[in-house]
């Protein structure tokens, strides 16, 4: 098991290294490098000045050389300076990361609170009218474009009824938890729709699969009441794969968070990444993307390890 985790960790590091190089290279391909922007901003700069500046910042060197320079600085904790925010990129990122984790964490809780009871209910009474209705709702959750859902919620709750704020994080001048919570309602709802739909379908499938197993039949044949069969025997086993799927969905939830944050002007990491890419804030974009990658890789790693740990049928030691 230790060996398995170590192997997977090593794999994740390789992926991370490749990704950092890829992202670094891609950012270099975005329109206008920093010097071009300076040239545009300052008409006094001649092309010769620009070339001198590029040499000064090492921008004339080949890609892998620039990457290695950046990497050695980054490993020392220096991720560069944010052009737009006028602060070290890492300092800008920190508080945004916390905001995003709050949003995503709440959304995980909400979608699981919806998916677990409904998915299990659906699995225990399959192929009935309610099961079909639940399946329809779940598919609708998966299929709805997040940004459009946000628009519709903003229209209904903020524009038409005026009961919730359309965006932002708190009312200016008010600093209370209740006020902040109010601002979180719509973003969390928006972000939870897709994952609640996906989780519900997964919980249903997993529970149904478990209910078909021989040991469930045995438990029923012994005359155990159905309630006990479900609670004691079925759920435990049905929920093992759910743990994995929840961890694996981190990546798509982060994608959803980026849209949600942008729609609701929520000051999270996703919006930061989007703004920095659109605003040519290279260092910040780079750090943001790397952190997003690291978090996703960690979540996937956790999913694999959980799976290996929870499922006794899979042996990573080889045949005994």
């Amino acid at each position, binding site marked *: 098991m230790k*060996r*398995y985790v170590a*192997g*997977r960790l*090593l*794999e994740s590091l390789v992926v991370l290294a490749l990704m950092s190089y890829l992202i670094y290279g891609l950012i270099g391909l975005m329109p206008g490098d920093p010097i071009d922007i300076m040239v545009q901003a300052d008409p006094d700069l001649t092309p010769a000045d620009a070339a001198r500046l590029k040499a000064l910042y090492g921008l004339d060197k080949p890609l892998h050389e620039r990457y290695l320079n950046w990497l050695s600085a980054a490993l020392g904790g220096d991720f560069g300076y944010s052009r737009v925010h006028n602060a070290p990129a890492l300092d800008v990122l920190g508080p945004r990361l916390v905001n995003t984790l709050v949003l995503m964490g709440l959304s995980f809780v909400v979608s699981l609170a919806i998916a677990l009871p409904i998915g299990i209910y659906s699995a225990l009474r399959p192929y009935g009218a309610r099961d079909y209705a639940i399946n329809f709702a779940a598919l609708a959750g998966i299929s709805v474009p997040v940004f459009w859902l946000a628009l519709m919620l903003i229209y209904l709750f903020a524009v038409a009824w005026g009961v919730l704020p359309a965006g932002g994080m708190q009312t200016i001048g008010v600093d209370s938890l209740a006020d902040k919570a109010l601002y979180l309602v719509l973003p969390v709802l928006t972000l939870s729709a897709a994952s609640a739909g996906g989780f519900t379908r997964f919980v249903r499938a997993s529970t149904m699969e478990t209910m078909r197993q021989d040991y469930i039949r045995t438990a029923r044949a012994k005359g155990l009441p159905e309630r006990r069969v479900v609670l004691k025997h079925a759920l435990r086993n049905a929920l093992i794969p759910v743990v994995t799927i929840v961890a694996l969905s981190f990546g798509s939830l982060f994608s959803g968070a980026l849209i949600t944050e942008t729609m609701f002007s929520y000051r999270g990491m996703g919006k930061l990444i989007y703004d920095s890419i659109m605003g040519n804030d290279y260092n910040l974009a780079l750090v943001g993307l790397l952190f997003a990658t690291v978090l996703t890789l960690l979540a996937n790693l956790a999913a694999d390890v959980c799976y290996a740990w929870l499922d006794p049928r899979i042996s*990573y*030691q*080889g*045949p005994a």
Partner: protein
Amino acid sequence: MNAPPLLEARNLQKHFAVKGAGLFAGRIGTVRAVEDVSLALAAGKTFALVGESGCGKTTLARTLALLHRPSAGAIHFRGKEITHLKGRQLKLLRRDIQVIFQDPYGSLDPRMTVAAIVSEPLRIHRVGDRRGRAERVRELMDAVGLSPALADRYPHEFSGGQRQRIGIARALALNPKLVIADEPVSALDVSVQSQVLNLLQDLQEAFGLTYLLVSHDLAVVAHMAHRVAVMYLGRIVETAPRDDLFARPSHPYTQALLRAVPRPGGGKRRPGGGLGGEVPNPLSPPAGCPFHPRCPRAEDICREQLPALEAVPGSGDGHRAACHFKGWE
């Protein structure tokens, strides 16, 4: 037996690495499926490999057909070494060595018609034109006792015995010299088995085929084989001409196998009982003679020394056994 053998294997080995999951996972162990096997197939005869399931006989047969690359040792076909053949030469060799498989359901692609299945080797080797191939399919179906009118049917419309005939027709399409038949009848009803075996014998006579027959069924072996080799844990433990082996089994394992065969006429089994215990885990075979944990005659030497495959004293030509106490009861 002075003619050169059609196929000869020397000190053949086939090992499989058992690996863990993931790119950086190491090798967990090695299964020695075939260990130091030497044998020679006489042209026009049937050589039978017999043993319990998991003894490595199928792996050996597939290695001889070059479906697996041997880990060590050499294979010669008609005097030429073929162990490391590749590309065009390997493809050319495949025309001479064909395989009949055990599972008459799994060995035919369910999406192909009989005509497509039987003519597949012809298409692979670009033999003949469309019309010539259709003619050849009719010929082959006729030869294996299937009505050519059924050529456009799909495998699932046939019985197990008929399907095996389709597999045989496919194996014969390229006029091979050697046919390797891996448990050709074990998946069939007993009533159909002898029909298919008789067909194989008729075809052998008609086309001068050499057979390597793999079977766990001693009755089938007795019916078909000219020479028999008994395998245990990847090794040949005894080999002899058929009559010799059945009359004077010299290895305790062969003796146990023969005792386990139900006698015709419903009589009692021979005294002495069958095999006790289970086949050891091939990942960690026992030291010394691989059979010693199950052997009624095992002594200290058996736990320490691997017996060589040597001539059985007092027995006929080419009768060899790998036992410290070889000799027939």
